[in-house]
């Protein structure tokens, strides 16, 4: 066991228990964990997005590594690259970015749209960011139309072709699924008042929906319990002598800290 591993375990224990301390109430331990979590993750995701997407997939396609002499337009294109490389050779290494891509000038479109987003920093040109947003929303709507229609409509209709005569159990199951699907759809009719027979059918639909939500709720809670067990397993591991009883020490310190704060609050309630 290295010193760094032990240190990491202590940090993990502190952050876990600091987050758990939220169950008592908002307190400085939770605030420390929350701010660390938010700040570090924001920076982490920014770095991940840049090094996993922008640098290899965007710059790597605009300026892939080239061998040999460059001439004409290509020389000019890589001249721009070399200019960027002058600022940061880590992002723009000499000779181009070697990520196994060929030069693809179509990637200028996302590059320009990305630049438009950055222009939000200058109020005079901020309106250009709307083009990028319009592109994203429009493209997503068009792409998802096909996906939703395929999975939510066509597959649903196909899925209703259930076996009806295999056994009594299968027949009951199939009939229940079909009734649930149809009555559920009735509930989502908006241009019709839910009264009379229509109201009764949609009420059956909402019963089906609520039963399925209940089942989903139970399933998700079971998943959460397994996550909690995972955290407790770590805390138990880190409470061993190998880690210098990290869990017990940190737990004790947090309890003492919370106790002192509660005492202070009691002594001067107006300041809280």
């Amino acid at each position: 066991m290295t010193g760094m591993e032990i240190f990491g375990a202590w940090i993990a224990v502190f952050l876990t228990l600091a987050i758990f301390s939220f169950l008592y109430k908002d307190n400085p331990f939770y605030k420390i964990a929350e701010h660390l979590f938010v700040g570090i993750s924001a920076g982490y995701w920014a770095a991940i997005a840049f090094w996993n997407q922008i640098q290899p997939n965007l710059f790597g396609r605009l300026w892939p590594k080239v061998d040999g002499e460059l001439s004409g337009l290509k020389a000019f294109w890589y001249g721009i690259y070399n200019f960027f490389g002058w600022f940061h050779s880590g992002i723009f290494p000499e000779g181009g970015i070697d990520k196994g891509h060929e030069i693809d000038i179509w990637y200028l479109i996302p590059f320009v749209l990305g630049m438009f987003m950055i222009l939000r920093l200058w109020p005079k040109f901020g309106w250009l960011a709307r083009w990028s947003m319009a592109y994203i929303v429009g493209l997503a709507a068009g792409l998802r139309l096909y996906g939703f229609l395929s999975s939510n409509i066509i597959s649903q209709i196909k899925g209703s072709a259930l076996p009806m005569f295999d056994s009594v159990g299968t027949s009951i199951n199939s009939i229940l699924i079909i009734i649930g699907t149809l009555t559920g759809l009735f509930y989502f009719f908006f241009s019709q008042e839910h009264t009379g027979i229509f109201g009764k059918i949609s009420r059956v639909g909402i019963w089906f929906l609520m039963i399925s939500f209940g089942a989903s709720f139970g399933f998700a809670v079971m998943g959460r319990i397994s996550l909690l067990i995972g955290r407790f397993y770590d805390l138990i591991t880190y409470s061993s002598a190998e880690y210098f009883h990290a869990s017990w020490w940190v737990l004790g310190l947090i309890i003492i800290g919370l106790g002192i704060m509660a005492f202070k609050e009691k002594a001067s309630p107006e300041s809280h």
Partner: protein
Amino acid sequence: MKSKHVLISIGTFAILFAAYWWFGHPFFKEGREVMFISIVSLSSIILYYIAEANNGAKIFLRAIPGLKAFEEAVGRSTEMGRSVLFVPGIMDMDQVETVAGVTILGHVSKMTAQYETPLEVPVSRAIVMEASREIVKESYLSQGRPDLYNDSMIHYLTDDQFAYAAGVDGIMLREKPAACFYQGKFYAESLILAETGNSIGAIQIAGTASQAQIPFFVTTCDYTLIGEEFLTASAYLSQKPSLLGSIKGQDVGKLIIMIAILFTVVFNAFHDLGWVQYDIKQFFTAN
């Protein structure tokens, strides 16, 4: 465009397409006929009803309690002198639910501008932040209160799911908003957010089409817009004829889908009994 024009356009398209099909339909991807017909017919129905609504046809929409509560929630915040918290989900603008959530934010921000109630919108995606700022700014301008708007009302926290949840929880505990709106695409953080909102006594209105998260919102929020209720919210709130028409068109689409389901069930049962040789499932199988 008048509904008559829409019908003429659809008819012309159908004739042209029939001619194209007759002449061997080059470039048409075989095996996707069902998808093609579905997209064209559903789009045509929706376009027709949009045109009808734009021409002044009265479109009835049944009441949804959760939507009526929007104004009540903002009003409560105003009376208590506290802020309104709006969470537009944790996904980007390429998700339909996020787009719907940001659209609803536009309506909520109109109310907060009108009542001069502070609004806070923590977001987890940079593009959602930009889109939200645009829409909220527009709302404040439309209500004649640009002075109340500032960019920091909509602020970025982090892309990380649970770090975002921790950050929003912190905001809830410190700012103590009187109304919390969760409108967008959510995952496992939904219960963490809604439980904290519940613990501070805020009136909570959730809306999502994320099937697995609806139960959590139903159990912890005062009102929940489930599935399509959430996606139709902007039509309800704006009462724009084009949006109302699209809801009517979608309802007709649903009716056709129900008929298709019933037909499939009966046809499949006949196939199982050996009365019909053709397997209906093959019809829906795209290549």
